[in-house]
């Protein structure tokens, strides 16, 4: 099984007529994802390579029965696009948009929590999620993933997610679902949400968690793993050598004072029984061992 999505998930792409939306939306469809509609205000009635475009999410949902949305619109339109999807009853919203103002993210998070508690937002600023062989929503290159499980991946970084997929696939270890939660300060879905889903999914038998400096989500995940997870977890945290006070690309990746260092996160995870690797290659190797011992 996979988490959050499967081969039957119907997906709309908000911003399908834009360059990002078109490129990734069609790439997702080629992978096998059921991309059933696009949404661009003012372009209803057009189509993108045969995919019908609607003016609003509500219309697209009414016509197609879609339950997931891939948001690929510019930063200034992203908050409104996410809320429009939630209002239309979309259950899973995947937002890849980078550089959304922090205030907008905070408002979106609070609105979803208050008015649409059942809606899951993944991202913003995330690579999306892929369930190999079934569905791919977002910007991950499908060919680097390997179907069949038994490993679930959750990561805050895009390219490091690819690196992790690559390391596992190279060793012949497949994945159930790979989820990129994104590197922004207010992510809609956090490590714990995903780890909880992996723990509940019978086909996922082990997890890889890739974190980075900044914030305290990794420490909270460590507490969750210690108290609630029976499945083995391998973790890697990027940014051991990052200097304090400098943003390392992601809006969320910053060490301030003694807060958010990679070492503190690795220590917390280690203490919670997580196998901590010092680089992505080692994380792959450790997971190969873990999987071998599962048999």
């Amino acid at each position, binding site marked *: 099984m996979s988490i959050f999505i499967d081969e039957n998930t119907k997906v709309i792409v908000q911003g399908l007529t834009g360059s990002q939306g078109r*490129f990734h939306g069609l790439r997702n469809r080629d992978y096998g994802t059921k991309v059933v509609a696009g949404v661009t205000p003012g372009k209803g009635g057009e189509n993108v390579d045969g995919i019908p475009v609607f003016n609003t999410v509500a219309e697209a949902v009414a016509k197609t029965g879609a339950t997931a949305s891939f948001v690929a619109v510019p*930063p*200034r339109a992203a908050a409104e696009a996410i809320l429009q999807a939630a209002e239309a009853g979309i259950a899973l919203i995947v937002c890849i948009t*980078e*550089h*959304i*103002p*922090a*205030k907008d993210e*905070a*408002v979106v*998070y*609070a*609105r979803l929590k*208050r008015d649409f508690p059942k809606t899951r937002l993944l991202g913003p600023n995330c*690579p999306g999620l892929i369930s190999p062989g079934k569905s791919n929503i977002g*910007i*991950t*290159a499908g060919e*680097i993933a390997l179907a069949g499980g038994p490993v679930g991946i959750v*990561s*805050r*970084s*895009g*390219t*490091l*997610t*690819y*690196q992790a997929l*690559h390391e596992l696939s190279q060793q012949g270890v497949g994945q159930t679902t790979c989820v990129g939660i994104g*590197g922004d*300060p*207010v992510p809609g879905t956090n490590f714990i949400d995903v780890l909880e889903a992996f723990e509940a999914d019978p086909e996922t038998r082990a997890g890889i968690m*890739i974190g*980075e*400096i900044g*914030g*305290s*989500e990794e420490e*909270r995940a460590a507490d969750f793993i210690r108290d609630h997870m029976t499945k083995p977890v391998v973790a*890697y945290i*990027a*940014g*051991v*050598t*990052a*200097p304090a006070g400098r*943003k*390392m*690309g*992601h*809006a*969320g*990746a910053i060490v301030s*004072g003694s807060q958010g260092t*990679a070492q503190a996160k690795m220590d917390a995870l280690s203490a919670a029984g997580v196998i901590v690797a*010092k*680089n*992505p*290659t080692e994380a792959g190797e450790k997971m190969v061992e873990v999987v071998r011992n599962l048999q």
Partner: protein
Amino acid sequence: MDLFEYQGKQYFAKFGIPVSPGDIADTVDEAVAVADRIGYPVVVKAQVQVGGRGKAGGVKLASDVAEVKLHASSILGLDIKGHIVGRLWIECASDISKEYYASFTLDRAEKAHLCMLSAKGGVDIEQVVEEDPDAIARLYINPLDGVNADDLAKLVDQAGIDEEAKAGVVEILEKLYHCYIDGDADLVEINPLILTPAGKVHALDAKVTLDDDAAFRHPEWNEFSLTQEGDARELLAREKGLNYVGLDGSVGIIANGAGLAMSTLDVVNQVGGTAANFLDCGGGADADLLADALEVINSDAKVRAILINIFGGIVRCDEVAKGVLIAIDRVGLTTPIVIRLDGTNAPLAREILAPHISDRIIMEETMIGAARRAAEIANKGSK
């Protein structure tokens, strides 16, 4: 983007937050002119984006023209932790009875805005957090609700603010919240927020960090970006639209994606090298951008080897390969480059680079192998 104190005060003033009258001065003569205009005594303050300027001699009280001349000439050009003072802020000196602390920022763990208020201002707040955490009162604010006067009144009580300052502090907190929200700041901080013997409350310092992602709503921020500090490498990178942080090592690093770039720094360090920089060339890098990235790294005299670590997703490896060749031509790059490429169009990239493989263009199969090779070359080169 961090603002200088004078810019922060100008920003505060737009939202009605009381600050001391003052103006900027880039020369001793300008400093005297400002002081004459606003009236003595004045405080002469170095404008640098680094803490601890008071201890470094960057803030002085001047009671007449002679003292303004003396202090302005000693502070201009002063080196404060590597920041050379090029600009002064001259303001009317204030009589101080009490010093408080106030700030708004986003609390990521709570996913809510956080107001912090303390009666123990005027000192390093990080130190107060460590030594006397109860001295800081906190208020979490749901972004949908905003602040209200009742909550702020409770906060002011809890923080132990003096009776005669309470109304003034609440008023300033309301304005500061608007400055934080409508002004799209990541952080607004007043330390110290002072109470004068006359019973007035006002901001004696201003720390404002703007959210760069909100710049599209604030065309007026342009004037701030013109005055940004940074080392030459970082300014060049910003001009080219690259995400760059300068460091002190000898291996120049280019990767795509912030996570992979950070991880590359770590791995270089693990194999005995030292990173010269963090450089994320982003999700859509093409040959020209890659060449720009190499140009920025080449401007760093400490770099002895360059490591390019790309996992192509949207980024196509063949564009990276072309960028390397363009850069070698355009900037006369001679520093050895170690390249690791995987993902989209990697085989094509290897084909493009194959005829050029030499001691200066080296391909490696894995991230660790490439890091090891680059570190070796850099360490040899620096001996």
